[in-house]
């Protein structure tokens, strides 16, 4: 996809600013974990272009996105509130505190491959709704994220098959970041390419350089357009690299060498976008410095927001189990209040 035309300056700067904001927030979050501000975090370092480029292509008015636990960059590109998003990593609420119905970002998903089928269901719902045209031209599209590791799960294969058979408007977005915790892609996907599997399900696919934000954006727009026009699902495999640990409790030194990591660093997606801005539009240092400062300031605002985020009251445990609660649950809540002296 090297032939992808360079986007207009305005768009390229927007992409770059998002990349830097995501990069700095991600780095900050790892620091906050070390400082005890949040108990854990799953860094996306190295995957910024794959996430920003794809998330940026979404029409948040009518599309719906199904993330995993590592899609902070997608959420940021969709303008989801970052304090409410990061609340999941502060152990405030598992799914995050943002409103999935309003933001069109499904709750953060901890089960590997857990929401890929949901995307198919949501997308088929769009097809059904299209039969009475409520959405205007073109259908809403589901964009579902998963990893090279997740591609081994049966649910992913079921999802691809359902979507293809039902012509559901789903973009399957695979971030092949080289690793599933300690297991390299080669030990997960024979042949190494998830994209190659799409053909077997009867759907087209795109293999894209996941560290090139411009290519990722173009590919995602193409796939969304394909789905929107009623042509059924499409798969994108974005090849990238998880530069950081799997999570803040992981120790990559046990399974990969520093040389591996150093080699991958040369593909830095943020640097590549900066280089493109310089060569295509002659962008100067002042701009880059101010973007960096803005990103740092944003990360700082998120830290302040997180630090002042109080734990949810214990009553929330009982409040959201059902729409219509049960007498047994009410009784348990009463006992809990009495015994925990939270009256």
């Amino acid at each position, binding site marked *: 996809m090297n032939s992808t035309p360079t986007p207009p300056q305005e768009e390229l700067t927007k992409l770059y600013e998002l990349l830097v904001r995501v990069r700095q927030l991600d780095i900050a979050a790892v620091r906050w974990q070390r400082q005890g501000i949040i108990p854990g975090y799953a860094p996306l370092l190295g995957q910024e272009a794959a996430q920003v480029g794809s998330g940026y292509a979404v029409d948040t008015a009518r599309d719906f996105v199904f993330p995993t636990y590592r899609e902070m960059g997608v959420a940021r590109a969709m303008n989801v509130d970052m304090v409410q998003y990061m609340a999941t990593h502060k152990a405030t609420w*598992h799914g995050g505190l943002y409103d999935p119905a309003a933001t069109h970002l499904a709750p953060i998903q901890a*089960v590997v491959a857990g929401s890929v089928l949901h995307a198919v269901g949501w997308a088929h719902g769009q097809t059904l709704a299209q039969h009475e045209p409520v959405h205007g031209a073109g259908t809403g599209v589901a964009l579902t994220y998963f990893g090279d590791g997740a591609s081994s799960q049966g649910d992913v294969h079921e999802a691809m098959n359902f979507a293809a058979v039902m012509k559901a408007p789903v973009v399957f977005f695979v971030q092949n970041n080289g690793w599933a915790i300690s297991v390299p892609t080669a030990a997960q996907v024979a042949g190494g390419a998830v994209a190659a599997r799409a053909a077997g399900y009867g759907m087209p696919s795109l293999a894209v350089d996941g560290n090139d934000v411009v290519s990722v954006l173009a590919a995602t727009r193409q796939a969304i357009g394909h789905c929107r026009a009623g042509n059924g699902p499409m798969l994108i495999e974005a090849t990238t690299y998880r530069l950081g640990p799997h999570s803040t409790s992981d120790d990559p030194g046990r399974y990969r060498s520093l040389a591996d990591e150093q080699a991958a660093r040369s593909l830095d997606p943020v640097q590549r976008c900066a280089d493109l801005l310089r060569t295509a539009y002659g962008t100067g240092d002042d701009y880059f410095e101010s973007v960096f400062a803005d990103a740092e300031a944003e990360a700082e605002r998120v830290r302040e927001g997180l630090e002042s985020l109080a734990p949810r009251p214990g009553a929330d*445990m009982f409040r959201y189990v059902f729409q219509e609660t049960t007498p047994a649950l009410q009784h348990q809540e009463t006992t809990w209040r009495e015994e925990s002296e939270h009256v």
Partner: protein
Amino acid sequence: MSEQTAEITAPDLAGTGSHLEHLSMQQALNRALAESLEENAKTLIFGEDVGQLGGVFRITDGLQQRFGADRVFDTPLAESGILGMSVGLAMAGFHPIPEVQFDGFAYPAVNQIVCQIGRMNYRSRGTLPMPITLRVPSFGGIRAPEHHGESLESLFAHVPGLKVVSPADPHQAYHLLKHAIRRPDPVIFMEPKARYWQKGPVDTADGGTLEGARVARPGRHVTLIAWGAMVARCLQVAELAAEDGIDVEVLDLRWLKPIDTAALAASVTRTRRAVVVHEAPRTSGLGAEIAALVTEECFNVLKAPVERVTGFDVPYPSGDLEDEYVPNIDRILFGIQRVLEHRRG
């Protein structure tokens, strides 16, 4: 505090001398796995990240290096695949010791566990035994993400053809794991992940009896029945209650299927009062089964209905609310108080 109490009340093994070691549960389990691999060439360990990494909890640390990638290997990321393949390997004469990385990720494998592992012996009229030991880091207490703190014991105990066991301390972990691996039937081995790093005495030579329950602390006034991580908490409660002159017996159930009814009956016949403590939600939790068994066995001597101190009927919460959910010392003491104060109307 928790470590201290557990050590004070751990079986007094001093004096037997040479085989006594001070190990964490992680070390004890790792040792038990290594010795099982040595003992039986048909044993295999596999799952997600169990090879080079040694598992996310390091329970399989060093085993692939030592026994090779035929015996200890990473699989693709698919729990149904891991457990379904275990069935075929067992049919081929192997003794699989699969790992599911966290409790909540056993759910994708439930179809294979329930519909296949639990009934292949039955279906084949005993000709295809399933000597599978499924290790599952279990229960809560580590402020982890969603699905990393669940208690699946009643789900598994409900399935015909499965046995379920959970160790409470390093000594139990070492012996129960080796014992489970030697059994010809499928065993779900639930490891209390919150206790992986606490050290305790392990007598590698003498495991004592490994079937049934064990009295972790004798007492006269009330029996606390628990398993896994809740045993240590109940021992703490017993220490505190002793200050008020309440003599608490702690029964470590160990086997959640089959349940040691005789041990339950013997204990409660002495104390005449029982409180079951578990992390799992209350409704249809194992506490209900235990209450029924105690009532059947001890109806005439019981001074009070069996109390249940459990998690709530809610999804296991995020870290901030974890301490509100998992039975804590106060809630267990309230349970004890209720059975002590109960008067027949």
